């Protein structure tokens, strides 16, 4: 059947059951938006204020729904505005297909208006890029792009269509093939023969070796990494942890992979890891890391990391094995498959003595009374008042660490945070994407005053689409995490981190047509949050906090994991 090339692009989106896309139109992508106009009853387009917001929204949609996110942008500045969002998705293995258009073939390479080498720029921050110059390849490229984004270790893919490829008079051969049948398509078969498009099957011998290692261990520690979340392996992971009867430390990306309220949880590990997690890491005799790449924020000092332990890495990506920390044993495969096999072969263990040594080190999780509002109080109010399945999107810095420390995440996709790339300004876009993908759930956006200023213009998107997102600003008038380093390491020389400036966030919220609140103590926070939950529209709560609040505990970059620069709870 012959159809318009642009219609084929839309049909290919429908093949993948895409019903929501985020984006921003422009000159070269006009043809695609013209086609989208005809498809508006089947594909909902969310128009953001800025392409970066659209990229984060598609990413947040993908993380919170487990489906592939889709984002449109035009050439030149449209494409370059995406790049921070693409890199954010790449570092956190989030499946997003970015679709851009470029100038036509006759203008290509001539420094034409809004021309840039989009695929060249996106290359190091994507799993794959495609430059489409031949319209007949559209179905192949679209199907391959979605397959690459979603399978194995997920990640972003970029497709750049030349404008002439999308011209309204270009017709191509096209047959609708649902995504679960299109693996038979020639291009995907060719790809599958050279790259395992499905996760590699774990080696039985490797499984047996680990079962033996576990049998010999007296002090095992589990690390729940982002792979548990992306692989939706939370149920089997929980069963594994309970059978192993071992403490479970959770990385930033692992939030939601293991219930934060579970009795075996020791909380975060690494730079701001809890004393329980970090001491367990230093003292364990067997460390099993699942879907964790031992980033420099977890394995601060690879040489001394888990030095008493045999280190075992379970990962879907072979390239992660031995990249940062040398392991004693590894298993390649999806977290779900590997843990299922382990659960079948492993007996129930009892490590009471080890648990009784580690678990009491956990800090009490109740906020102390204080006349001034504290970060822990703000988060406690959110935890007590918001529904248990509330999705939390954060930005980056102190509020991010506090949120992960004091809120509980119980399922994959409940915590949306830029762990790898550390993108300030990620949260609001991600919250918009999450709310679009999860209309029945509550979405709370926790941010700092520095981060919020970066992309707060997306409040117009919140208002326009009637999204009941509650933004909670940890407003300490400073770039808190950088100030914390300046306080502890740079002799209190606060170089350019004091944010003593506008806008008035309450008035800003009101200007965007949203509810605004300012709170200075716990009682005000309780009232404001209750009103925000009930108001039915988006809301912004400006929480006034002390400038010198610090994230505790803290281990300096590159130091052994128990060399605490700041101890838990100490003032």
């Amino acid at each position, binding site marked *: 059947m012959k159809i318009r090339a642009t219609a084929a692009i839309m049909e290919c989106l429908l093949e993948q059951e895409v019903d929501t896309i985020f984006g921003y139109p422009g000159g070269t992508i006009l043809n695609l938006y013209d086609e989208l106009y005809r498809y508006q009853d089947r594909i909902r387009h969310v128009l953001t204020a800025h392409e970066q917001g659209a990229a984060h929204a598609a990413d947040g949609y993908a993380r919170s729904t487990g489906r592939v996110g889709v984002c449109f942008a035009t050439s030149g500045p449209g494409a370059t505005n995406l790049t921070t969002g693409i890199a954010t998705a790449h570092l956190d293995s989030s499946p997003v297909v970015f679709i851009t258009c470029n100038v036509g073939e006759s203008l290509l390479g001539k420094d034409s208006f809004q021309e840039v080498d989009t695929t060249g720029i996106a*290359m190091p921050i994507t799993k*794959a890029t495609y430059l489409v110059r031949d319209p007949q390849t559209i179905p192949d490229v679209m199907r391959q792009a979605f397959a*690459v984004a979603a399978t194995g270790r997920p990640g972003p893919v970029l497709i750049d269509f030349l404008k002439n490829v999308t011209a309204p008079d270009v017709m191509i051969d096209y047959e609708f093939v649902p995504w679960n049948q299109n693996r038979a398509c020639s291009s995907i078969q060719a790809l599958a023969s*050279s*790259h395992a498009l499905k996760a590699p099957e774990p080696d039985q011998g490797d499984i047996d070796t680990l079962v033996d290692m576990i049998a010999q261990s007296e002090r095992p520690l589990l690390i729940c990494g982002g792979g548990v979340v992306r692989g939706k392996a939370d149920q089997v992971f929980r069963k594994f942890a309970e059978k192993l009867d071992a403490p479970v430390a959770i990385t930033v990306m692992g939030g939601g992979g293991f219930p934060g309220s579970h009795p075996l949880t020791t909380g975060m590990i690494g730079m701001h890891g809890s004393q329980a997690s970090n001491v367990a890491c230093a003292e364990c005799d067997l460390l099993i890391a699942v879907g964790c790449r031992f980033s420099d924020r977890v394995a601060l000092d690879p040489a001394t990391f888990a030095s008493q332990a045999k280190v075992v890495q379970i990962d879907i*990506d072979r*390239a992660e094995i031995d*990249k940062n920390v040398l392991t004693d044993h590894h298993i390649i495969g999806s977290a779900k498959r590997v843990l299922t096999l382990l659960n079948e072969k492993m007996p129930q263990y009892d490590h009471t003595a080890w648990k009784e040594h580690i678990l009491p080190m956990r800090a009490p999780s109740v906020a102390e009374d204080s006349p001034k509002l504290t970060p822990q109080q703000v988060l406690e109010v959110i935890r007590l008042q918001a529904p248990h399945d509330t999705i939390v999107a954060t930005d980056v810095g102190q509020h991010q660490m506090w949120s992960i420390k004091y809120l509980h995440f119980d399922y994959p996709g409940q915590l949306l945070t830029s762990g790898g790339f550390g993108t300030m300004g990620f949260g609001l876009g991600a919250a918009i994407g999450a709310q679009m993908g999860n209309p029945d759930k509550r979405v709370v956006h926790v941010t700092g005053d520095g981060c919020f200023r970066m992309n707060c213009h997306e409040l117009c998107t919140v208002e326009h689409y009637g999204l009941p997102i509650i933004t909670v600003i940890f407003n300490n008038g400073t770039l808190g995490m950088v100030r914390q380093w300046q306080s502890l390491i740079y002799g209190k020389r606060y170089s350019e981190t004091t944010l003593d400036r506008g806008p008035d966030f309450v008035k800003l919220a009101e200007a965007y047509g949203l509810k605004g609140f300012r709170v200075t103590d716990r009682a005000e926070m309780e009232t404001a949050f209750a009103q925000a939950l009930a108001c039915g529209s988006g809301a912004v709560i400006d929480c006034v906090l002390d400038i010198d609040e610090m994230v505790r505990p803290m281990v300096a970059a590159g130091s052994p994991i128990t060399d605490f620069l700041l101890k838990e709870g100490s003032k």
Partner: protein
Amino acid sequence: MKQTISVLVENQAGVLNRITSLFSRRAFNIDSLAVGVTDDPTLSRITIIVDNGNSVVEQVEKQLNKLVEVIKVRTLDENSLIGRELMIIKVSANKSSREHIMTICSICGAKVADISPTSMTLELSDTPDRVSTFEDMMRPFNILEVARTGVIALQKGGGKI
């Protein structure tokens, strides 16, 4: 230790860029790199020599394997590979030195590609070591220009990667 990595890739614009950008992003050093199309016109073979530790080579191989455009990656066994490099070298030559140069050429198996009253241009295809030896032998005659292709290599025997 130098190691030879043979990579089969899709013969498309931008693939070489993707491979070399992977090397620079991961801070892997390339000693030499040679690219050419294979018997299958849709595929190119890239031969890369790296001089890093074993763990680096292992990382290179794993990272290359993740690229969609990469069909196969193999680190060749140094004891059973045929590696060749082509060098074209231009040296000053006159009536008195021409014969000395020809003697070294016949010892090393180099051919004369061009000659002029004041110079000779020679070509040699051999292992990188022997190509370097030949270059050293030419040094006393005043080298004017050198071009080397970088090594291309295949495994010995009937197998293929």
